[in-house]
């Protein structure tokens, strides 16, 4: 089995940041804050966050914030919960949460909770359990969960549970490993995991492992490195991770590396990107791969960062 080419991945991430003129990077401009979270978390997991100038990143993030308190995916872009979470997570990585005007951000998040407990992603009203996770995770990191109606938020997530034990984006929607991570993560953060049928969901999740050892996100789909994170983190939160073959999964992730130029792809021999590089490294972290820092399965941040937030300095 090959080994993790950690140094190459660090180089790849630093280099992507500089290549701003390719079409690939240009069409990702509107979600650059998500990209920053994926890239910087990977660097931190590999112990190389100090290669980045934190002041530069923090000042750019603050320029993405709107009067409403929410963050856009880049300067000048409209705010959304998806980017607001990334902004808060990146600030947490750098231990710079104190630059935030807490009331402003939390008011924005609170304003997006609907009567039935669900969350809209922005003022235009699309509802999705992904946004419930974003809101709950953000507020928990900022220690302001009491600002929303947690009971109703939990009730809405539970209403998105499917007969196979999984969760979809809205009530009646199909189970999807990404949505399952969001729902299980939100339930874990709010101490509501008793609503999950752990054996039933664990069964569905471990059926995601295919012959190659990789995981898919839904039945009949091909394996994809990103599900190493979504499926695995969910299995850990419900204490059923021993139901999959970890060795085979590690091999699958390592096979998706570009060992020459760095980066990880969705499947072996495909083109690499930052998104899959993060999910590959985060997956290996959950699998306790040597040389990678431990990541928290619910907050999707390195465990030492989470510990600093909740048990660190006053």
């Amino acid at each position, binding site marked *: 089995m090959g080994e993790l080419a950690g140094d190459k991945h660090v180089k790849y991430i630093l280099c992507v940041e500089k290549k701003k003129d390719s079409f690939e990077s*240009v069409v990702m401009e509107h979600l650059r804050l998500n990209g920053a979270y994926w890239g910087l978390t990977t660097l931190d997991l590999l112990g190389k966050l100090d290669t980045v100038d934190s002041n530069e990143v923090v000042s750019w993030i603050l320029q993405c914030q709107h009067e409403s308190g929410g963050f856009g995916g880049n300067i000048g872009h409209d705010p959304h919960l998806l980017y607001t979470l990334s902004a808060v997570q990146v600030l947490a990585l750098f231990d710079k949460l104190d630059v935030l005007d807490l009331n402003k951000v939390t008011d924005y998040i609170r304003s997006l909770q609907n009567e039935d407990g669900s969350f809209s992603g*922005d003022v235009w009203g699309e509802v999705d359990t992904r946004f419930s996770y974003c809101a709950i995770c953000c507020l928990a990191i900022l220690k302001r969960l009491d600002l929303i109606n947690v009971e109703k938020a939990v009730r809405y997530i539970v209403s998105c549970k499917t007969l196979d034990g999984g969760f*979809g984006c*809205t009530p009646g*929607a199909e189970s999807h490993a990404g949505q399952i991570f969001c729902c299980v993560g939100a339930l874990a953060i709010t101490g509501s995991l008793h609503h999950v049928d752990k054996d*039933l969901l664990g069964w569905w999740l*471990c059926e995601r492992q295919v012959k190659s050892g990789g995981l898919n996100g839904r039945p*009949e789909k091909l394996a994809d490195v990103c599900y190493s994170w979504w499926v695995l983190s969910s299995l850990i939160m419900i204490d059923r991770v021993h139901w999959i073959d970890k060795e085979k999964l590690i091999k699958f992730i390592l096979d998706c590396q570009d060992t020459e130029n760095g980066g990880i792809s969705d499947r072996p021999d495909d083109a690499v990107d930052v998104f899959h590089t993060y999910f590959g490294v985060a997956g290996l972290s959950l699998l306790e791969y040597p040389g990678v820092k431990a990541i928290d399965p619910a907050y999707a941040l390195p465990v030492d960062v989470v510990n600093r937030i909740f048990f660190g300095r006053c």
Partner: protein
Amino acid sequence: MADQPRIDEAGENPLAELELILESDPLIDEVGFIHPTQLASLNEEGTDGPGPKNLRFWSRDRKLGISTEVILPLYREAKRAFFDAVRDYKMRCSSCSGGEDEGTGSDVMKHGKALLLVSSDFGTAWNSRKLVASKEESFSTYMDELRLSELILSYSPKSDQAWSHRRWVIKRIAGQTSSLLEIVMKESELVEKIAERSKMNYRAWNHRCWLVSYMTREQVLDELKKSKTWTGLHVADSSSFNYRRRLLTGILEDLCCKEGVASLDCSFEVRHCWKDELDWDEILIKRYVGREALWLYRRFLSLCWIRHFTTHAHSTSCNSNYIAEQTTDPSFFLDKELDLVSSCLAVQDDHFDDFQAQALYSSSYILWLAKQMPSPLEIELRQKLTARNMNDLLSEFCPNSSFLCGSSAEDAEGTQAAQGQL
């Protein structure tokens, strides 16, 4: 950010050219990106094309081709023009405070459209369109938005933003149009059309599921019938089975809400519907060997069957004919399922993965069902498995069965207690 409009080598502004094409043919319904050499040969083919020198765009019969070489300058120029237009529009809106002179958002719409054609998930462009459309509040603008979203989906069928935009439009017009039902049915057809080209598209099928809440009971039944052929031809598309799950669940919920004599007739009809679905799934399982989606769908059908149609076996006053009897007896049902599983475990050829897969899926199907059924039935099923000598085969084909089925001591105690009662 560039301050000057970018002029390419031929001295033309690609944005202006694209916008001219879009304006001259507002009904363009498909867009694609083409390599310059291919574009050149396309332009040579027709004599009535936009001109022999055009190496950036091609447009005919409501189809639009954009050269891959022009995408980058086009994106930059469209983004600049779009942000300028939005800034102007918002300034005019705030200075006129809601009066009629606030001006149109035509520039926002024009440049936003060009931008979305090269960057389909540019959320701010979708949002600005919503802002302008909601101020205009005209039915035809909303219809234009549906058309644009369809155009974007023609090259980016998974665009979350494009699907979400459709839902926003439909919610806006839901209260003010008499043609809502017609629109909903057209949406459903659009999903099917897109699903044909883009397999297992979660966003597309989720949109179709969302439509169900706007359908009447008759429409739901009709959809169930109409979408059957498509699903039968795409048995690996698990999402299309989830759509049927959503439709059937809708019918069931509807039934549970009703009371009285009418509901008994209904319940007979729904039962019939369910039985048809189980039979149809079995036919597909035998025809398409080793398809995971078919077995997962069967888990749903069987579990609901046991929960809703067998527990009240003696309390319904439906015409007690043969169908009613055979379909309400859980023991009869379990025997039929075991026959099906047994036939799938008899692997005909070790060398074919499909048969191995069939054996795996059928084993895990029956074990899953056993675990989800009410206790007394689970015991009955396990006794039947023992009587048929199936346990060894099941654990051979489903190696995970040991922890999946007996994972907690609590369950084992529960089973023992239940057995004690028997």
